[in-house]
């Protein structure tokens, strides 16, 4: 080998040896925003991310100036959120961000979005339900238990056996109603004694709950996957009797994402589009207020000003889309966020 070519080779090797890159792991240069300012009307969008990929994130949208910042948790706190963002629940000035497959809850200060605590040691947490200043419940997909949290130490201090998967929870007069989506019932738990007191039988697959202005409970059952017809039930929490039962007409329907307007007068849910009904209605609406137009809506949120936010996860491996409609269901704005946007929190 000539001297020249050996020099070339040495230079080549040294070239590689001297290349030091700073980037480790997933990078998103367009997500970085050094100057995140918290505004009174912010909307946080929980982006689930792909199971097992560790790419859950939170996007921040401000409806006044239409600004978007992605991966705000990472931007503010310096590390990635984790794997599969399941839910965001506000309680006592903190936002409890449940990161399902990371088995943890990140607790954020709602005035700065800075992390104040991490609650770990959960199996497959789904939803957070605050009981009082010192106590909260966390539902779970696989542990067959509801975890009891001490909000002072942010630690798991106990559990309630539930026999299976638990989903959304709602506190009504010291009683917590808990969805059991792989069954046909919801549980009623005494929040003082942490014991199951009653079950309410509904259609298969109850997964979401809201409370209306008349202090009545609404539960939405999907009907399972082509198992039975879905149902929307209005329940009187003082007796646990079903006041009104509305049955979906098509077995292929899988209604989900039950939400309620800030005044507690209007119910929303997803079923081939966004559907709306008054709490005084006696039947399900026959047409959607917002149609999907070829998309598949994934998440739903109703803002304090009755704007309807709905998300489209597209093909689940690209930036999801959020559509913002006003209270008359006309499209105001649409924007791209993180992977699989599924939930909204309105400041």
């Amino acid at each position: 080998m000539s001297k020249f070519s050996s020099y070339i080779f040495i230079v080549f090797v040294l070239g590689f040896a001297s290349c030091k890159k700073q980037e480790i792991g997933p990078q998103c240069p367009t997500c970085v925003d050094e100057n995140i300012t918290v505004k009174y009307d912010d909307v946080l969008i929980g982006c689930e991310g792909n199971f097992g990929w560790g790419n859950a994130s939170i996007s921040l949208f401000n409806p006044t100036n239409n600004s978007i910042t992605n991966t705000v948790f990472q931007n503010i706190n310096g590390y990635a959120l984790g794997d599969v963002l399941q839910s965001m629940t506000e309680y006592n000035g903190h936002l409890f961000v449940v990161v399902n497959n990371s088995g943890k809850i990140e607790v954020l200060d709602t005035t700065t979005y800075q992390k104040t605590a991490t609650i770990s040691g959960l199996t497959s947490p789904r939803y957070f339900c605050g009981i009082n200043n010192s106590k909260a419940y966390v539902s779970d997909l696989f542990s067959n238990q509801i975890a009891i949290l001490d909000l002072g130490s942010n630690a798991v201090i106990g559990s309630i056996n539930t026999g299976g998967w638990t989903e959304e929870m709602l506190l009504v007069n010291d009683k917590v109603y808990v969805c059991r989506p792989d069954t046909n019932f919801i549980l009623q738990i005494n929040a003082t004694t942490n014991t199951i007191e009653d079950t309410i039988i509904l259609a298969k697959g109850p997964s979401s709950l809201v409370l209306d202005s008349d202090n009545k409970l609404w539960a939405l059952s999907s009907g399972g996957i082509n198992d039975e017809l879905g149902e929307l039930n209005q329940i009187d929490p003082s007796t646990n009797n079903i006041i009104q039962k509305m049955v979906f007409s098509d077995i292929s329907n899988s209604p989900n994402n039950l939400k309620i307007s800030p005044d507690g007068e209007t119910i929303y849910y997803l079923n081939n589009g966004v559907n709306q009904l008054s709490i005084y209605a006696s039947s399900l609406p026959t047409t959607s207020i917002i149609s999907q137009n070829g998309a598949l809506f994934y998440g739903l949120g109703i803002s304090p000003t009755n704007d309807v936010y709905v998300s489209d996860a597209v093909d689940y491996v690209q930036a999801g889309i959020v559509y913002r409609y006003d209270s008359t269901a006309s499209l105001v704005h649409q924007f791209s966020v993180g992977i699989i946007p599924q939930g909204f929190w309105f400041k």
Partner: protein
Amino acid sequence: MRVLKNYFLVLFSSVASVNATSQTDTLKQVEVATTITPAPSYKLIKVTNIESHVTDNLADLLSKETPIYIKSSGPGGLSTISIRGAGASHTQLYWNGISINSPTLGQLDLATLPVAFIDEAEIHLGASSVVDGSGGLGGAVQLNTSANYKNKLNATFRKELGSFGIDKSLFSINAGNKKFQSKTSLFRNSSFNDFKYIDISKENSPISERENAETIQYGIKQEFYFAPNKENHFAIKSNYLDSYRQISSALGIETKGEHQTDKVLRLMGEWRNGKNKTFQHLRLAFVKDELNYIDTSLSINSRIRVDSYKATYNFNHYFNYLLKLSAQVNAGADIANSTGFGAQYQQNRQSIFLQFEQKSNWGYQYNIAARQEVIDGKLTPLIPTIGVKYFLTKNHHFAINANAARNYKAPSLNELYWNPGGNTDLLPEIGFTSEMGLTYTYRKLSFGISPYYSLVDNWIQWLPQESGIWTPINVKQVENKGIELEIKKMVKISNKSKLHLHSGYNYVNSINKSSALATDNSIGRQLVYVPKHTFNIVAKLEIKKWSFTYNQTVSGKVFIDASNITYMPYYAPADINISYSLKKDMKSADIGLKVSNLYNEDYQIMANRPLPGRWFLLFLKVNLNATNE
């Protein structure tokens, strides 16, 4: 004519033991193949330095010795291949001509294929994979075994000890005479893989130790070769792998103790016959593949068991040394049981392939071929291919070639029958691929450049439906354009020292052209986990009893979301391998040191799956070798 006949016989007996390869008579530029291989107008890569990777798996081999992108979750972890921008299921892997992609998944985890099971590896890019079978929209990998009838006794023991608990042992003994050969290999590989890494998922990115990443593999290979006369060769080939792997979580996920076992048995009987100008090659095979994935925290206990029966018959007839007709008939059945099916499914496939190949005396060759397959009694699209090669110079140093093919990939059994979600209405993914090439070969230098273009329609992707069930759907049309460069050079420095250089560079622009989804924002963007640039170089310097190898690979950044917002940065790990060989008569001993990730790069290939920094491996090999000559 008599001369010609002898010519064939001589060639046949010398190459008969070499599967799926061909030997070139440089004077006449005639190739005689005893089985069906891609014609000279197609591009293939012969993987070199296989012997030095004998204790590695196929993912390690291909990621180091070729510029092909291997997507790996970690040492010994799930590793898949992407050729020319196509997906893992668009590369078909063959063991001695028998398809070994999992019929349920449609792809093969390269970490479950130990290099100790094979003697040769050949990558058939693009259109050339039609010769092997359908489904290789990106290409195919042929993994072959063969015997050397000159061998009397060749016994090797190899021991390797390395960082994070790497402990590998390999014993092999090949013995026989001019008519009979036996080849046996036994190995055990294990590693704790508890290497240190930067945990970017935690506050202040602490240094952590990888958990739940242990791997243990046992394997045995036994082959018998028998050549009763010059015209007939028989072989029985088998290998068995027992693999246990813990599956470490992505960063940000607590370790849950997931683990997987793979038990794979491959068995084959083979007969080759060559008489006058006609060559026949029959292979009958049985493959039993058992996979068990357990995640106690998520109550997952997934079992897949597939029994495959395959037969393939090749026929080559030379009308004269310039004109050849080849035919191949395949039949096979896959019987699959999976916890994801809830029932047993059987898929039967038969196919026939015909190829006509003609050469001119002065260095011009063309071939035309077509394959027709029947899957479960239904005709699949006919896949034709055509290729030409032309020598630009009289000395045959410069050649150009061009080829094109239509191809398809039938849906996998999971895509058809997964419960719930399996979609029996799925259409096959249809590909068109074409390539041009310019090659230069003279003595110890070879150089090649090949631009290519391919289009895949009906690209399958799993998507959730209104009911919440995920279903595979024919969603996209994907266009791959690229260029591949390869250079190989041997420099003789002195009588006792030489330098081998082998380098490759691939560029691929793989974009989504159209989508069945209304709001798809990935159109016109690069596919996820397809790097635009990949490069490798292997420089091996031999000086007397010393050997130094420097291996550098570079993979450009890959997008990890289809909208091309987030990406994994490029990585460029280098390995260095130093060994010293002592030889006395028939005995030899090698001792060596390997330093991997020489520059201690912190990197991940798949997002949030860290890979080890600099690590070391010591190896010792003792060998006893005698030939019949």
